């Protein structure tokens, strides 16, 4: 079924659509990654999703130093140094229609992120839907998907009307009113808890956790779909026994029965290089299996079901 793009629907910025995702909701799903985030966690594995629009990525290994990208740059942000392109990131505004990426012969320069209309996105969802199987649906993630509120609401509403199972993965750091606008159209919410202590939270994520914890409690009461809290487990940041106990108390206060642990990984590291940003997560090692086992036991002994990473029960 081909829909006509009527130009009246919202447009949004996303940086990927990924089919055959198997760990972010029931069944095989299509994940939609929305640009922009309210936080800046030092371990983030999607650094290109923090920018509200697109980002320019540069792969030095692919660059042949031909210089074809230089001439058309409106900001004069590019230069050649030692046969490789240098981007003056303070000048580069990641412009709307970058010429440098279009001019690049080897895709060493490329854009991450693009604009898409709700209609176009829904067409893709309709296509993917044929292949999800018995279960499946979409999961909006990012970035923080509710930052582009109108776009997110329209796509969720459209899916809900079309009997598509919907989920979002949120950092929780947005106004409660924004949640209220979308929860009627959402089946599942994955809600990240990063740290129960405000000071520590701010250190690790560059934002406070007050709003997050409030939203968590309110969603527990007012959202009637499935709500799953996720704990990104970052060694030496939030994995102490004491911290886990605080998380347990909070979850009990919210009346929850389960927690999904996402262990730290460094797979996003290469993307920092491409964005020419520093990755602060690399100084930390990924949690050991032993550690994960202990933490799982701690949760289970406290009466909470706990599943780690890919061991999803759905």
């Amino acid at each position, binding site marked *: 079924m081909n829909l006509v793009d009527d130009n009246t629907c919202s447009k949004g910025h996303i940086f*990927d*659509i*990924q*089919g*055959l*995702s*198997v*760990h*972010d909701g029931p*069944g*095989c799903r*299509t*994940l939609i*990654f929305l640009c922009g985030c309210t936080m800046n966690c030092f371990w983030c*594995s*999607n650094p*290109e999703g923090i920018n509200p629009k697109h980002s320019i*990525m540069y*792969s030095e*290994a*692919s660059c*042949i130093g*031909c210089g*074809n990208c230089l001439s058309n740059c409106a900001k004069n942000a590019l230069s050649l140094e030692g046969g490789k392109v240098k981007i003056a990131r303070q000048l580069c505004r990641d412009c709307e229609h970058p010429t440098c990426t279009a001019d690049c*012969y*080897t*895709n*060493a320069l490329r854009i*991450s992120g693009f604009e898409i209309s709700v209609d176009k996105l829904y067409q893709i969802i309709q*296509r*993917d839907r*044929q*292949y*999800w*199987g*018995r*279960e*499946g649906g979409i999961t909006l*993630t990012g970035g923080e998907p509710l930052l582009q509120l109108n776009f997110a609401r329209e796509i969720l509403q459209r899916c809900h009307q079309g009997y598509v199972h919907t989920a979002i993965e949120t950092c929780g750091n947005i106004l409660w009113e924004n949640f209220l606008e979308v929860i009627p159209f959402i089946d599942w919410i994955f809600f990240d808890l990063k740290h129960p202590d405000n000071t520590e939270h701010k250190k690790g994520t560059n934002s406070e956790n007050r709003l997050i914890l409030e939203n968590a409690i309110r969603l527990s009461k007012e959202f009637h779909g499935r709500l799953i809290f996720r704990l990104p487990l970052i060694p030496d940041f939030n994995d102490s026994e004491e911290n886990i106990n605080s998380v347990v108390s909070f979850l009990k206060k919210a009346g929850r029965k389960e927690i999904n642990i996402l262990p730290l*990984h*460094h*797979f*996003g590291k*290469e*993307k920092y290089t*491409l964005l020419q940003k520093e990755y602060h997560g690399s100084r930390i090692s*990924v949690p050991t299996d032993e550690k994960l086992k202990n933490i799982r036991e701690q949760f289970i002994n406290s009466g909470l079901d706990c599943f780690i*990473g*890919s*061991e*999803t*029960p*759905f």
Partner: protein
Amino acid sequence: MYVMEIKLGQLEDVSDVYNYYGKRPESGIQQREGKKAPTPRADKARQLYLEAKSSVSVEFPYWYTRRWEELEGEVPIIRRAEALKSGFAHLTPAILPGELLVMRKANYLRGSYPMPWLSEAFLLSKEDDLFKTAHKASADDITTIGQGGGNVTASVGNVISIAGKFGLRKEEIPILIKTAKRWLNRSVEDIGHKYEQLVPGYGTKEEIMRAVICMFDSGYTLPQGREVLNYYYPLQFGINGIKEICSKNLNNVAGRPGMDRLYFYKAVHTMLEGLQTWIKNYSEEARLMASLEKDETQKAEYHEIAERLDWLSENKPGTFHEALQLVWIFHVAVLNEDAISGLSPGRLGQVLYPFWKQDMAKGILTKEKTIELLECMRIKFTELDCFASMGVVGGVLSGNTFNNLCLGGLDKEGNSAANELEMLILESAMSCDTPQPTLSLLFDEKLPEEFLLKGVECTKIGTGYPAWINNRVAMEFLLNNFRKEGMESEEARAWAIGGCLETSPGSWMPLELNGEIYNIPGGSAPASSVGVHFISLPKVLEAVLFDGLDKRTGRRVYPAHGSELTTYEEVWTVFKHYFSMTVEVLTLTNNIQHDIWGKVSPSIINSMLKPDCLETGRDISHKGSRYNRTFNVEVCGGVNLVNSLASIKKNVFDQKSISMDELKTALKSNFGYLSALETGSYSLTEQFKTDEYNYWLRIHKLCLDAPKYGNDDKYADNIFREWQQWVSKMCENYRSMYDEPLYSCQISVSTHAPMGAVTLATPDGRLCGTAFADGSVSAYPGSDRHGPYALFNSATCYNHALSQNSQLNMKIHPSVVMGREGSRKFLEMIKAYLRKGGFHAQFNIVDSRMLRDAQINPSNYRGLMVRVAGFTQYWVELGKQIQDEVISRTEYEQLG
């Protein structure tokens, strides 16, 4: 990403960018889950197999030829039967300790032999070389055997390498040469060649073959195969029973019109006598070994083998073990009749189920014992080698014999045909993961979920099998093609895959066992894939762009078309014209070759097995089978053709960003890369730049960025659909020697590498000499950038039942399908693709880094199996070019 210059730098980040939510194993190699160990008996046999080398014997050809010569002037089919009888009667038996199933092609573990009656030119052209090597090689002059597992890739000591794969004892070389010489001007190849030259336009055929636009003639290389065997007659009547049928029918037809029937019945009878001697020689050997054996258990097993063989040399089987042994005897017997690849046992679990069920009910068989037997059967099938020339063995088959065993599907009444024995076949394929028999699961919505999930478990261990096949699409294809010969939907359900992926018609036959009747499926047509074999579509397009020339050699292949190619339609029209010329001339010449095969070297054993040859008294080359519309047109490189057409349409005509002359010069200049024809480096991942590289960058980028099949992009997909619909219709304009229309077949097997090797750069940005995309609906490596669902949508943009098959190969990282939930979701994905009309999908569940490590350290990966274009094979036995191609395939990787 198309070439390594670009690729090496980007390979890691490509997967990161497109799958960034995904989790790569941080370090080390991800192991496949679900791996089980075989029984000790099978493990021992597998070790023996892995240490054995492909070996050639000259016994059978010697005795065959000797008898043939004695019968100068005899009716050809009788002469052939006597020659076969003599060959079988003189095969030296070879039984190995621990074997539960015995008998093999020749007197070596991995034995096979040349069949000069089909083709002797290859052997004689090697005569000088062989003599030289035989003379030179000595114990002191030991050449190392290169990478390649059981392949004898170089001569060593007294063993001479033939075709880069087989070893032959030095002292047997003169016998081989002498035997081969007797067939000069008398082999199917030589006689066929004499007459094919009478076809108008034969010169074009020669040029087509020389340019490697077509890969090989099936008539004398592999005249049989790509078909499903039928074991009904031996299982129902036993050998003596069949002989009685022959005698009775012979009496009915002797002296009556249609006299060829008389000779056919006599030939079958004679040939069966040869088989009986062969079986009895083996039972004698078993008794001899028993007499020498100290170990009491082994001694008893030898005696049991002898008794079983004695019984089966005359009678029908009564138990599962006997039935399986008899199936094996006839499978090997057919393989010894002709050079055959792709002889499939078909739905063996359903054929043997009556025996298994009754044994289980009687309590004389257990599931454990069944698994052990099935594992032994796997080793036996894996032992099979097919002797053919280097081009056919390496280039087309990668040494594979394609004994495809099918599971599932529907029974005669239309209900699920899956049974418990098939569950055990899957189990044994997981515990004893040898390449043969490869498995295909005939998916239907009626199959039970538990059975399908067992299939998923098996797929997940990374063997590449089972391939997932769409039962309903196959039935639609069969009914479209065989209705005229009387096929109805009930019989369409009896089908199976013959060879790697050829939909083949079958029949239900009423097996009686202890008073109960079971309808068992089996093949009922001759080779389902002979005729016009492997037309290189990108090479035809090359000829279109260069006015009928083979640009590699500069030789003229087709008459100049003289068109200026000023519109896309002109390009497409000329392409259709050249392609049609190719099919026309190859159909005519192949018809002659197959006719000669049927006249001078007809099939007797396979004919006897196939319904309804015993009833009609005609062999399979004289339409004795129930279904005979079995000639086809095979093509290779379809996706590169479509991508190239899309690039021409977009860049040259729509956007006019490249002129036709510029494009042609760019192709000749290989986009500024050194030509693989000069460097000898055909690998996708090892291409080298020239000084002109920067000059061609712009055009190369435009070609690479042009719309590509596999991305749900209508621009490319519409061209793909138009091609598919056109080719399936045009095939019907040509008629086989059986006077039936041809159909199209879309498997590349391994031809996408050698055919790519002789083809210039293509307008889609592919570089000279590198492999084409494999299969028929797999995307070109790295060009599908929108995930599996977009690829599925592109793949199903046309009706797959228009062709005998379609082929989708995907490499999947283990983390996508991890755990119980992973199994369920994986099954949902497979089902979804098949429901959408996909005919076939198969999966490599491997980490590409594991494959790269395997290239560097092959000895650590002797048992590693991969899927390439429709079959399973040990990684180390594949050519490097194919290895690179597999590594380059897009890996779908997800969060772990």
